[in-house]
């Protein structure tokens, strides 16, 4: 299982979707491993290998869940960063307008009696 990381834009969204698609198989693997362990328990077999298989399946499922959460957070963070950058540019443009006005109506009060 390879979970891609550090992608941007559409690639990040595609990676998130690809990771989400891994989840059903991982869930099925956990269910299968659990069923095999139950069977081994019922038959009095050595449960060691089955427990190990279940642990591995659970670990993989957790890794996918973590990757999904991480990617979703990254995508959201990048979106917020982009929004903040646009907002900052809008504010800067507004300030620029005000500065131009102040410059246009600049005057000196030197020689003013008050």
């Amino acid at each position, binding site marked *: 299982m390879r979970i891609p990381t550090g992608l941007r834009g559409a690639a990040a969204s595609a990676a998130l979707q690809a990771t989400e698609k891994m989840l059903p198989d991982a869930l099925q693997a956990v269910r299968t491993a659990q069923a095999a362990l139950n069977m081994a328990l019922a038959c009095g077999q050595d449960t060691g290998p089955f427990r190990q298989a279940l642990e591995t399946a659970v670990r993989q499922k957790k890794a996918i869940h973590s990757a999904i959460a991480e990617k979703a957070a990254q995508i959201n963070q990048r*979106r917020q960063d982009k*929004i903040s950058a646009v*907002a900052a540019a809008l504010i800067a443009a507004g300030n620029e*307008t005000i500065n131009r006005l102040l410059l246009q*109506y600049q005057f000196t009060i030197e020689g003013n*009696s*008050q």
Partner: protein
Amino acid sequence: MNPIHTAADFAQAQADYSDTAAAAEKCADTFAALNIRMGEKQQALSIIQQRRIDGGEFDSDAPTIALLQLDADGLQPLVETARTQHQAACEALQQAQITLQQCQARHEAAQAEAAAQTLEARLHELENLLLSGIADLDVLKKKATGSIHIHGETLYRFSDRLRRFLQQGVLPA
């Protein structure tokens, strides 16, 4: 209205619009692709039908028609779902556009208000300077003429443009 807040809202609306437009485009592509597939099935059926009308009948027609019909029947709910999703996406895009326009208008109004406040404050400073200058002028003219009182236009004559604005509210050109 604070331009910082309206800028944040405007930027958010731009991002929302962009996301909604991308989703709408995806829905439109899916809908178009399904429509094309449905069209192909229907066209294949029509060709067979026309050929049979023209006298060209094959034994393989019956299973082919049945398969094509099954495909078309299977595609129909997919086309309907895609149509509904496409329509919903178009409505969402329209709403996002309205929100974007409202946010833009609010931001431009807030910017104009902030700029107006700045300019108004600057004009008050200029007015104070003008009045200070007139007070100085009063002192100088009294000294120059030896008069005790100097009033009105003798002291300072405002320009016609300014007087028209003050008296009639006519904006200077």
